[in-house]
């Protein structure tokens, strides 16, 4: 058993799968991280990923290029982010409830639109998804990934650079810690938070689109299946740091890939549901382990009203 696990972990196909599973988690986790660094919880992620998966796929199905599909998913994600920002930043409403509302709205709107567009399909229509680019072939694990995975991997240092090396990044981190200080600098708290939520939600939209444009070639109901919530947990695990977010997503994906393999190889030893429970149980465990050390952004979930102490 132990040797078998070791063999699995050392094999190339295993790591190919890990990167593929990790891609939407990386993008989604970075999206949540950006929102939370600016002080706003975004539970809209689950629904935004559904909307991104659906809208990106629909654009490509109607003849748009794959990259246009990605762009459509990002814009749709950004629009739902704008709605969340309007409710939580400008109207200072409960971030929990607003986020759930955005998730319910984005999910139901996507399902409704799918049924309007395809009233009577029994097998889901398909598109030609992203293929591994030829200039990558020959590189071991990376050579079998699509451009969107590379985009996700590139997004990590990009976000690190923006957050830690630019004035905008400093302002975003500051607005999540001490909005009064931001106000004192003459910057707009509402503007910065809105920007962060919109950009973060665009990332969530792309995270969803990866599933329909790269991992699979069709849109299914329930295809997001809690991935968004797992991203929210991963951000806590990562202590709100992009580098650790990448690590967390890879670690999580490795466990997920491992349970899939074990499920196939040790078939019948344990019911398959036990393996499927592992990712969710693992997320809860990660939250417990990290919660004590968690350095929450100080202003997280605290709406800012001008002139209020």
């Amino acid at each position, binding site marked *: 058993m132990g040797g078998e696990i070791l063999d699995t972990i050392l094999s190339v196909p295993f790591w190919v799968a890990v990167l593929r599973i990790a891609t939407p988690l990386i993008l989604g986790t970075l999206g949540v991280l950006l929102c939370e660094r600016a002080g706003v919880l975004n539970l809209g992620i689950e629904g935004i990923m559904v909307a991104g998966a659906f809208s990106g796929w629909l654009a490509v199905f109607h003849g748009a290029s794959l990259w246009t599909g990605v762009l459509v998913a990002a814009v749709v994600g950004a629009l739902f982010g704008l709605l969340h920002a309007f409710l939580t930043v400008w109207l200072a409403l409960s971030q929990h409830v607003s986020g759930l509302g955005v998730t319910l709205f984005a999910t139901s709107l996507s399902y409704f639109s799918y049924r*309007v567009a395809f*009233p009577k399909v029994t097998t889901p229509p398909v598109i030609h998804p992203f293929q591994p680019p030829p200039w990558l072939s020959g590189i071991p694990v990376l050579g079998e990934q699509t451009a969107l995975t590379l985009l996700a991997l590139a997004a990590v240092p990009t976000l690190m650079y923006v957050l830690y090396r630019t004035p905008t990044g400093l302002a975003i981190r500051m607005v999540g810690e001490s909005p009064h200080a931001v106000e004192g600098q003459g910057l707009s708290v509402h503007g910065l938070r809105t920007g962060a939520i919109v950009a973060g939600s665009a990332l969530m939209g792309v995270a969803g689109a990866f599933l329909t444009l790269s991992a699979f070639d069709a849109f299914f109901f329930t295809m997001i299946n809690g991935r968004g919530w797992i991203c929210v947990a991963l951000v806590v695990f990562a202590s709100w740091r992009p580098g650790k977010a990448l690590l967390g997503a890879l670690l999580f994906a490795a466990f997920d890939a491992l349970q899939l393999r074990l499920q196939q190889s040790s078939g019948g030893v344990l019911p398959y549901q036990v393996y499927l429970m592992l990712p969710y149980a693992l997320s809860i465990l990660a939250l417990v382990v990290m919660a004590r050390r968690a350095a929450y952004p100080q202003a997280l979930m605290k709406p800012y009203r001008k002139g209020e102490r």
Partner: protein
Amino acid sequence: MLALAPFAAVLFTLIASAPLIAAAGAPVLRAYAGLFAGAFGGVLAITETLTRATPLMLTGLAAAVAFRAHFYNIGAEGQLYLGAIAAVLVGGMHGGTGFALPSLVLFPAMLLAGALAGALLLLGPALLKTRFGVDEVVTTLLTNFLALLLVSLLLDGPMKDPLSMGWPQSVALNPDLELTKLVDRYRLHTGFLLALALAALVWFIDARTALGFEMHAVGANARAARFAGMPVGWITVKTALLSGALAGLAGVFEVAGRTSYVTLDMSPGYGYSGIVIAMLAQLNPLGVVVAAIFVAGVLVGADGMSRALAVPNYIADVIVALSLLSMLVATMFARYRIRWRG
């Protein structure tokens, strides 16, 4: 003004959903008329709506009590399923007969088991919050998936219906334990009345007991409550147990009143709709009754309307989600007063 907020929110929702109905190629007014007729036009429609409102009232109450204390229980869906499976565990026809006990004993035991199952599922996240400071939103969301997988596991194994021919379905509930029908030949059952009684009970707890006061205090300002000497952690745990028990009972009533079996599709998201209902009711337990009947009406009415006019019945979920969002905005504006300055 605050009392008008739900009506303003629903009105806005109906206006905002109109373009979607038009996009599906249906005449908007006829669609809404069909929706209303499907929900309340005739005995069948009304009994169906009230049948659907029964689990929604309980998940709505579960959300209302928890949110009152600012304990965000998003796990009612999982608690409902565990309540349902616990009901069958106690009152199911295991081995063809089930437990050889009089139904006078089994019935309360079944209710208790369901309530306990829901409460225990929520106890985990509650303790993680009070002991380790883990945010309950994510943990309760994740327990939904765990609970559903656990139920799926039980339906494949020990709780499997031997007569189901491979369909994932639990053994049947003992027919003696089923809730009686309220109206002959319709599905409405006494669970509806029990849910009404529970709403009254929760209202009493909320408005007239020390626990209710403590829940309000913790929700309004946990630091001040702690300063006043209230055991905030213990109050949170008590709130969670009450909330989980209510959601668990939703599962019991569904099994005992409607399905007789546990299946993996017995709840089309009642747990999540409960949150919308609690918000529409502004967390008032009696308001939950009205809000649950409204949401049930939308769900039932949309089913009938979608068959007649070819509008996908997901429109119901859109309307429910939009009414939550517009309710949030409406309550916020209702707290302000517009004054004309001459």
